[in-house]
């Protein structure tokens, strides 16, 4: 049991933990802003910040060394001296196809060109860290850090919480995926004392594909930090041509995403063609890039809607934010999306949302349209419905705002704290 030390940090914090030693959380992540390639880093950042406010003392490990502004609420540890961009070795962030099938004992820790080498170094670093001070709970994010999490649990007997933002099934968009990653995920999920899934979509995958008992898994939805989106002025010149089409009565339907199988964009393009049969004032903005880009461009041409579909290529910064702003309708067409934070961003920038039933974010929003990713007629119907009814578009936009604003990182942190306490008491007993 942790020692209590009443009155020790008087006035330091007014939360549930005051009067106790702060709960020490070892947070195992792979990225933090501004060195993030996706939503994982953003989620980890806001979650940690909210946890710190609620009285947690956080050691956050990343696999590279860099400066992280605005992180003085926790201690960030760099496990290697790599630059942030080199943390996946020589392969891409989400691309596990080329991952070498090696157990960590077969890996040369000095070979930091290789992902497995980086992961081995990460595990060694965590071993050293927990030897200095044992945490009260270990919170590991996704397969990348699960081996380190299991090792830390082994050394300290602290409860291991595995937080699943995406499984290999989601990343690969198929049942295949990388066998080694599957194996690591399976072990991590088995060894974990508690599992956090970011949605029921993800929870069900963990149950069905990895045979983990449902009662070991808790769904804690991601939130959005609305403040971080404010203070931005839309620049109408970024997508000037689309803006002029809007003035002529066109509706802009957008996807802002990576062009991978997981995102279901070929179905979306087919639905775009189907919708265009019924309503000719539709244009489609595909903002992003990825392996499916050429396939999507030629599919749009095959279907005769090439002039209605705009491909931006990779967007960041202003082009990225303005892509949300110019859109009237945001479609999340994913075949499998654990959560889908971008939908909340789109809602913030005034889009009506259409989200597949296979996307987790749809579980927390009600003022949206949902469809099965393969059901192009339903998607087309919904697009045409919004495009031809100002009141429907207005109600969807206005009402979803009440919803996403209600989802807060403080609730996420509160749920995590409760879970740490539960997992901890289970182990101590």
């Amino acid at each position, binding site marked *: 049991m942790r020692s209590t030390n009443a009155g020790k940090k008087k006035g330091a914090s007014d939360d549930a933990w005051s009067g106790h030693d702060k709960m020490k959380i070892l947070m195992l992540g792979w990225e933090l802003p501004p060195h993030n390639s996706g939503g994982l880093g953003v989620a980890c950042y806001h979650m940690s910040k909210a946890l710190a406010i609620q009285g947690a003392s956080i050691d956050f490990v990343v696999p590279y060394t860099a400066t992280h502004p605005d992180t003085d609420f926790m201690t960030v540890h760099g496990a290697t001296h790599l630059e942030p961009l080199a943390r996946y070795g020589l392969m891409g962030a989400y691309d596990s196809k080329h991952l070498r099938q090696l157990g960590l004992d077969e890996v040369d820790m000095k070979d930091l060109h290789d992902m497995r080498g980086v992961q081995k170094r990460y595990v060694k670093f965590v071993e050293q860290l927990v030897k200095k001070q044992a945490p009260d709970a270990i919170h590991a994010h996704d397969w990348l850090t699960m081996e380190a999490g299991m090792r830390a649990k082994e050394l300290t007997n602290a409860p291991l919480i595995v937080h699943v933002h995406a499984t290999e099934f989601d990343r690969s968009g198929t049942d295949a995926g990388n066998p080694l990653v599957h194996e690591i995920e399976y072990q991590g999920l088995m060894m974990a004392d508690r599992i956090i899934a970011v949605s029921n979509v993800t929870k069900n995958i963990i149950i069905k594909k990895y045979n983990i008992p449902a009662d070991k898994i808790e769904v804690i939805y991601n939130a959005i930090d609305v403040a971080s989106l404010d203070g931005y002025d839309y620049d109408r010149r970024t997508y000037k041509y689309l803006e002029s089409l809007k003035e002529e009565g066109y509706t802009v339907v957008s996807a802002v995403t990576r062009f991978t199988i997981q995102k279901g964009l070929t179905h979306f393009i087919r639905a775009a063609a*189907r919708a265009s049969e*019924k309503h000719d004032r539709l244009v489609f903005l595909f903002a992003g890039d990825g392996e499916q880009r050429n396939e999507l461009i030629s599919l749009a041409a095959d279907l005769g809607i090439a002039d209605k579909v705009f491909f931006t290529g990779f967007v960041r910064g202003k082009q990225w934010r303005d892509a949300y702003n110019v859109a009237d309708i945001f479609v999340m067409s994913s075949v499998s999306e654990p959560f889908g934070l971008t939908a909340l961003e789109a809602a913030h920038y005034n889009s009506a949302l259409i989200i597949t039933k296979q996307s987790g974010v749809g579980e927390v929003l*009600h*003022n*949206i*349209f*949902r469809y099965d990713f393969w059901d192009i*007629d*339903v998607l*087309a*119907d*919904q697009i*045409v*419905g919004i495009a*031809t*009814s*100002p*009141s*429907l578009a*207005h*109600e*969807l936009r206005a*009402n979803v705002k*009440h*919803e996403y604003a*209600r989802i807060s990182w403080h609730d996420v942190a509160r749920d995590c704290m409760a879970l740490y306490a539960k997992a901890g008491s289970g182990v101590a007993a």
Partner: protein
Amino acid sequence: MSKRGIVLYLHVHQPLRVRKYSVFDTAERHDYFQEHDGSDRDNQKILHKVADKSYRPMNALLEKLLATHPEFKVSLSITGTFIEQAEKWAPDVLDSFKRLVATGRVEIVSETYYHSLAFFYSLEEFERQVEMHRDKIRELFGVETSVFRNTELAYNNSLAKWAEGYGFKGILAEGWDPILGWRSPNYVYRPVGTEKIALLLKNYRLSDDLAFRFSNKAWEQWPLTADTYSEWANASIADSPLINLFMDYETFGEHQWHDTGIFDFFENFVGKWLSNPDNTFYTTSEAIDTHDSAGEVDMPHTVTWADAERDLTAWLGNSMQHEALRHLYALEEDILHSGDQALVDDWRKLQTSDHVYYMCTKWFTDGDVHAYFSPYNSPYDAFLYFMNALRDVRYRLMESHRYGGLLDG
């Protein structure tokens, strides 16, 4: 000295729900009301289900009570959309209603045939639907109606004036505290600005004890017994003449299931109430004929029997609902000129207030999603299918009758 009486008034209604009617069906097929997938939009399935759970057992109980207690009486309003579906799929249910009316102690209350909000959009269309309903009731039951209730009990002073001018002797409304103030709903009233029409006001506390709270285990009065309810009724009526119990007919068996004990409860309560020789039941007409007005009631703004707000926001609370009905009623002249009876019928079936009720978003925005009772996944889906059907109505007008346009506003 006349007796103290309960006015039991039950509302019988089923809408014709719009199926998942997509934009690709528009201009292709016109079967908006035909979903045969066993879903909650499958009108035939729903009618069969509610007939088994509610109409058959409750009519059997009402027949029994009428046979057992000479003083038992009940008033019913039965919508045209219900009657049409019962004619097709449950003619025995309709026969049992006929037997009830034939006792002479069951009054039929007048309303719009399509359970519509036409009063607020087109007085001419509203009157046509009232006439259609009176014709249908005459044809089916051989009786005339003399008391009126509007859809969802939506009532205001101008409706009362209309009803008086139209020849009704009574009209029903919600007995809402902010309107009544210190006064009790247990009297006959006169709407402000009228000469002779009577106003009966729902005793919402005693009505809602049955309609909404009866099976609620979190309610401190659960389980409600006939004894307790009799005590409440006696305390409420004291030396006033009436208790107006107005509710959906489907309260019995559908909203409150058989296993909640609602049928036994009700049978016991009727026996208990009538065991006191000072007590009786009145039909709506009898209540009006027997008792004089206790004073004037002023309702300048529309009051309904729905929700905590008692207003029309569940039907006309957002822009989708307004848009749907605006477009629908904008077609009135062209539709009627077309002389195409099938088209006119479909247009009127789309006027049933349930369609816009399913588009209500207030529970979604309040975060109380579980309060959303609808055969659709969301109010947006409801709107989508409705508008696709409405566009098809426009298409039929254009195609066959060269009226109107495919797009409006």
